[in-house]
């Protein structure tokens, strides 16, 4: 590798590593266990994991059909629809939260009917947290899966259909396995984004321990009163994320080769 490029890469690694090293350095190791087993921390962690996994599940169930629509079905305005669905990726999360208010809040366009007819309110509830997280994380899955579907050779599916397989069978046994690496990568990205979501959650769902106070919110609030606790909580989140990224590394990098093979 040419030396200047190596230097740049080295600086970049340091750039990413330095904040983490800083946290590890300032961490109050003697009190760490007390903070970790603290009620606030455990509640926030459990809530974060539950909501982010729900948001990921929703992203898969609704995101894959959307990705299919955007990749395979040609219709007027498809570009605009795609831009609309991916908008929340570039929108500042707090703006997303405010927008969700006006749509699904108590006085929102749809929200007011949810409240009047069904007595369902989303703000200040765990369901609201899941909605906010799904809103910001689904586009990551959609964009990854759509790319994989586009690269997929349609002849494989056509062959399956001409051999008599139903559409659902074809999707389940031909398409899904072929895009599995992209689907996994997309799901991991969506999950990571949902886990780290702060702005839309605190704006739309609010902040209350046990119901809506996810880890990022707990970290932010403890920064005010007890910075040491904030550092410990932050390290927990980093450890989990790091572990997941490390564990799925091979599948992630495998997607590039797999898609190329299938398209050939």
């Amino acid at each position: 590798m040419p030396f200047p490029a190596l230097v740049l890469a080295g600086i970049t690694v340091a750039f990413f590593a330095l904040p983490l090293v800083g946290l590890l350095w300032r961490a109050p190791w003697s009190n760490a266990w007390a903070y970790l087993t603290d009620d606030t921390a455990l509640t926030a962690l459990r809530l974060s994991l539950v909501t982010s996994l729900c948001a990921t599940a929703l992203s898969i169930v609704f995101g894959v059909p959307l990705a299919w629509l955007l990749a395979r079905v040609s219709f007027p305005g498809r570009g605009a629809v795609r831009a609309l669905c991916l908008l929340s990726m570039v929108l500042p999360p707090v703006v997303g939260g405010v927008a969700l208010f006006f749509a699904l809040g108590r006085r929102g366009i749809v929200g007011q009917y949810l409240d009047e007819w069904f007595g369902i309110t989303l703000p200040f509830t765990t369901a609201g947290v899941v909605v906010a997280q799904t809103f910001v994380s689904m586009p990551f899955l959609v964009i990854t899966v759509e790319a994989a579907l586009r690269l997929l050779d349609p002849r494989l599916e056509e062959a399956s259909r001409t051999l008599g397989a139903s559409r659902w069978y074809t999707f389940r046994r031909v398409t899904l396995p072929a895009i599995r690496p992209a689907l996994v990568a997309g799901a991991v990205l969506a999950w990571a984004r949902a886990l780290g979501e702060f702005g839309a959650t605190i704006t739309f769902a609010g902040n209350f321990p046990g119901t809506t106070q996810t880890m990022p919110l707990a970290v932010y609030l403890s920064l005010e009163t007890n910075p040491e606790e904030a550092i410990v909580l932050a390290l927990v989140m980093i450890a989990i994320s790091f572990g997941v990224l490390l564990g799925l590394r091979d599948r992630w990098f495998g997607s590039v080769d797999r898609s190329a093979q299938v398209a050939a």
Partner: protein
Amino acid sequence: MFAAASLTAAFGGLGDAFTTANPDVDVRFNFAGSSDLVAQISDGAPVDVFASADLTTMAKLTDAGLAAGEPSTFATNVVEVVVEPRNPLGITGVADLADGDLVVVQCAPGVPCGSYAVQVFANAGITVTPSSYEENVNGVVTKVTLGEADAGIVYRTDVIAAGDAVEGVPIPDEINVVAEYPIAPVADAPNAAGAQAFVDFVLSPSGQDILAAYGFGPA
């Protein structure tokens, strides 16, 4: 200048008056929850003056040796219940907030406004379970203005500042708290002379008049 979120309107006015009297000085503000600001100053943010919404948070600064002089109380404030215009739910006082069906929001207990709210509830002898703990008073006002929350606890000055967007339900003096706002120049300030000049201006009669116009009580 780091100042508590509840000082946004008043310090905007003070800043304008100060700049008119001292045209060569550029005044810039950072408004947030007082506890957030102390954390930032402790981490080394270059600040000239700090104005807090309670004495406890200012004490964190002085205890850490980060204040350049003794803090002076420059204003007082009281808290009020904030509701939507025309008070559709007919809330008459703090006691009504104990109703479990009401969506009540307050500042997080770590923020001055939140700790005042907790005190008022204790004084009134009621238990209130809020739906959300906001990071600062502006968050509480916003949730009520948008119609998401039925009621909130904010400073009287916030109710005044929000104008027609909200309505305030006063809290009787017997159970209310008096919030004391201290101001102090920060140690190692980039502009120490300017910092002292601004503090002096805030404590001067003209500064006090401006604060009174925004609904603050006397120091």
